[in-house]
């Protein structure tokens, strides 16, 4: 009895003593802050941070390997508290969200009958799925089962639908998806994503120079989610009111529906949602990433400069815009007339961009009021040039500097600034581009007797948008094709009194594929006009490039534009970037926006001191994904596209009111339902598209 009691006590004592000593000897110092930090974390052990459990995350935070905001479930107060414990900067976590690209549907043909396990992972292991579509959703809902937050459900169309209210962005769905349907990404990664040749891209999205996710925003419109549609457009294009009015919409020419029917009126839908936001009396909030403290000088407040500032601000940097003109907007304010883009609309749009916290200075010109040295001295980390192409080309004919002769952009800018201009009664506009048409249509509204448009090739070769040419025709502008100005005739007062031109005929095609006009001998004809406006193209004004400075080292192309790397828009001076007309030569607003976004992407990496991460599979220079471009699209029921409402001709030529009007909601619905949802929904050439589309 005694022995057993003594033994038990002895054993207990021995164990206790050994363990006490062990705990002393084998004591491992653990930072008390780890426990404190762990208490502030969510404790869900969800793995969203990428560390093994909350204690792993706490260790990483204390070790400085992870930011205090690493936990995706923790609110800003706790992040601040953690930052206080670790002595680091709080920073704000960018909300991660799940997005699924595929909208499902059951139209794609099956390659084989599958009777196996109802799991995506199992189906995917058999030749990548039973469907013909190699990129689409398999629809067995592995992601739904993986989601711990009930944020995913298989929708009526058999594809996962994300409940953004519940999604915390833990990434569990992305991890289980055997395809790339579900993607978890922060806002800035989405802003900076370049179209890739392995993305599921509809032909329109491949064509859009700004790479807007067109099928997605049309889908939002169809569902009446106008704010989501606007936000989708804003991921790629901050100037949606402007583009909705003036964009030549190259996307519509590639619309798959256009192969068998009229294309979807994509741009009118964009304008429709953009106008809804403007007329709603409030602005939809635009999220920005956490501040980086880096400053960028944006030279030029036109579409390229505004877009670059917008994207940089959303990525957390601090851009400041320097504009030479009295107001921001550049070519879209001074080059596009009021009847196409009302200044009121433009002001509203620009204010929305400035509201993100972008500083701007007007009436300051690079090279006169400040130079590169003063910008670097003021602490800017990078400089973006979006100075546009404001130098009109000269006709190089005798008499073009007479009174009554103007150049296109100069003329439009003076009208835009409401400067008085000495205009006669009969005008000849020389040129066939959009600037020439804008000049001609502006002159009609100024009440002139006769407006001629003189172009050296034919209507077919005119680079202007077709709708613009048609509108100009309706407004009574007389076109004189195959006519090359020869000289300007002078009257007694030294004023122009006529334009002599040579008749031309079309010869062999030139480098641009257009037939080269050849003058006809002895065909001089005089057009009796007292004002001549030449609008035959522009190039950038790079006069700030003073000899003996850093700017002088900038490489310039033979078209007097910035020489840049096409993917990064970076010049040969590493901290100088350029996009827009000053880099591409005169082009469209939407091309300037696309270039500005590529520049912002590269600038972001430059400013964060990261090596530039290229995108080798990027779809640059309008490359197309071969298999997505169809020859035929059987099964389309032909439906008329929505007509654009316009002011009647008689009314519009007397004033500068906006000519193109917005389509109404019913028509927008109808039009959005014409979208085939290419590369989003299963495609099967044997089933009629219109009968099988999901209900609106």
């Amino acid at each position: 009895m005694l022995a057993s009691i003594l033994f038990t006590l002895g054993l207990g004592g021995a164990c206790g003593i050994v363990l006490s000593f062990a705990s002393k000897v084998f004591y491992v110092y653990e930072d008390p802050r780890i426990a404190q930090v762990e208490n502030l974390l969510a404790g869900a052990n969800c793995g969203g941070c990428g560390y093994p459990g909350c204690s792993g995350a706490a260790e990483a935070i204390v070790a400085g390997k992870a930011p205090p905001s690493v936990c995706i479930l923790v609110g800003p107060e706790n992040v601040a508290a953690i930052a206080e414990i670790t002595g680091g900067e709080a920073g704000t976590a960018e909300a991660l969200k799940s997005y699924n690209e595929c909208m499902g549907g059951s139209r794609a043909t099956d390659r084989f009958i599958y009777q196996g396990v109802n799991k995506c992972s199992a189906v995917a292991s058999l030749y990548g799925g039973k469907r013909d579509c190699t990129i689409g959703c398999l629809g067995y809902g592995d992601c739904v089962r993986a989601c711990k937050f009930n944020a995913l459900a298989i929708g009526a169309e058999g594809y996962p639908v994300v409940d953004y209210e519940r999604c915390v962005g833990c990434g569990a769905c992305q991890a289980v998806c055997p395809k790339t349907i579900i993607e978890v990404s922060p806002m800035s990664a989405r802003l900076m994503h370049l179209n890739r040749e392995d993305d599921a891209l509809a032909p329109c999205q491949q064509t859009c120079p700004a790479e807007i996710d067109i099928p997605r925003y049309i889908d939002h419109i169809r569902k009446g989610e106008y704010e989501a549609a606007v936000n989708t457009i804003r991921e790629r294009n901050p100037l949606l009111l402007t583009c909705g009015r003036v964009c030549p919409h190259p996307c519509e020419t590639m619309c798959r529906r256009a192969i068998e029917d009229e294309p979807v009126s994509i741009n009118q839908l964009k304008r429709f949602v953009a106008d809804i936001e403007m007329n709603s009396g409030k602005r939809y909030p635009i999220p920005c990433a956490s501040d980086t403290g880096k400053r960028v000088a944006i030279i030029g407040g036109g579409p390229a400069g505004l877009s670059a500032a917008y994207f940089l601000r959303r990525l957390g940097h601090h851009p400041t815009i320097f504009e030479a003109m009295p107001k921001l907007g550049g070519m879209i304010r001074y080059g596009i007339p009021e009847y196409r883009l009302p200044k009121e609309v433009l002001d509203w749009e620009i204010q929305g961009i400035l509201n993100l916290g972008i500083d701007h200075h007007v009436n300051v010109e690079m090279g006169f009021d400040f130079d590169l040295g003063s910008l670097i001295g003021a602490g800017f980390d990078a400089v973006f040039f979006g100075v546009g192409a404001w130098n009109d080309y000269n006709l190089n004919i005798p008499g073009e500097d007479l009174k009554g002769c103007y150049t296109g952009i100069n003329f439009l800018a003076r009208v835009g600034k409401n400067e008085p201009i000495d205009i006669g009664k009969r005008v000849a506009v020389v040129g066939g581009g959009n600037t020439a048409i804008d000049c001609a249509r502006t002159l009609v509204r100024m009440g002139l007797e006769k407006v001629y448009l003189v172009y050296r090739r034919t209507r077919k070769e005119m680079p202007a948008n077709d709708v613009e040419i048609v509108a100009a025709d309706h407004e009574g502008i007389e076109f004189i094709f195959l006519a090359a100005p020869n000289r300007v005739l002078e009257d007694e007062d030294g004023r122009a009194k006529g334009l002599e031109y040579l008749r031309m005929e079309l010869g062999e095609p030139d480098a641009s594929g257009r037939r080269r006009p050849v003058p006809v001998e002895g065909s001089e004809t005089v057009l009796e006009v007292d004002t001549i406006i030449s609008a035959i193209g522009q190039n950038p004004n790079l006069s700030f490039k003073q000899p003996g400075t850093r700017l002088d080292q900038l490489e310039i192309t033979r078209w007097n534009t910035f020489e840049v790397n096409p993917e990064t828009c970076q010049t040969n001076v590493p901290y100088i970037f350029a996009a827009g007309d000053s880099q591409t030569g005169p082009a469209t607003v939407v091309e300037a926006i696309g270039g500005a976004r590529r520049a912002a992407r590269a600038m972001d990496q430059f400013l964060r001191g990261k090596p530039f991460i290229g995108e080798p599979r990027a779809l640059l220079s309008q490359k197309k994904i071969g298999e997505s471009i169809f020859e035929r699209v059987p099964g389309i029921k032909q439906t008329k596209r929505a007509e654009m409402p316009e002011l009647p001709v008689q009314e519009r030529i007397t004033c500068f009111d906006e000519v193109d009007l917005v389509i109404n909601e019913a028509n927008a619905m109808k039009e959005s339902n014409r979208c085939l949802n290419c590369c989003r929904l299963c495609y099967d050439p044997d089933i009629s598209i219109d009968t099988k589309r999901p209900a609106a």
Partner: protein
Amino acid sequence: MGDFTVLIISSIFINNIILAQYLGACPFVGTSKKMETAVGMAGAVVFVLTMAGMITWIINTYFLVQLNIEFLRTIAFIMVIASLVQFVEMFLKKSIPALYAGLGIFLPLITTNCAVMGVCLLNVQDELTFLQAIITSAAYAVGFGVALVLFAGVRERINLGRVPSPLRDTSIGLVTAGMLAMAFIGFRGMV
């Protein structure tokens, strides 16, 4: 030498601690859902069981038998094993952090693993020598690991299959374990 081979074979296969003696069923079901976990657990069991077999043999031979208090065996072993696991955990954390990171979360689980207790008691029952006790313990542990890893592999496959809902998860696991045990009966007669 031949004796030891027989001892090892019989401990691993014929008298497999889980599938023949039905000990340690709790961690067998609990940690066999994923192969990774199963391998970690198997490693931890080999480590602890060998240590425990050694210590308990010493305790039994030099204290319990000497003092004629064998009736305290169960209580003494429980205490020794629990303390041993705690000690080992602390030791590893300090001295071999890499091993601790690998086995870490499984060590506390073994405190409550009846296979460990069972093996120690069996060693006494079979009146093994010190060396035999160590080898038997290690072999039992390897047997535990083999069964656990096999079972985890099977369960990972079953998870991909269409299991009727009343049988899902643990239920089908137990059925599978039964079949595995029957398969292990086939080893009888090997020695």
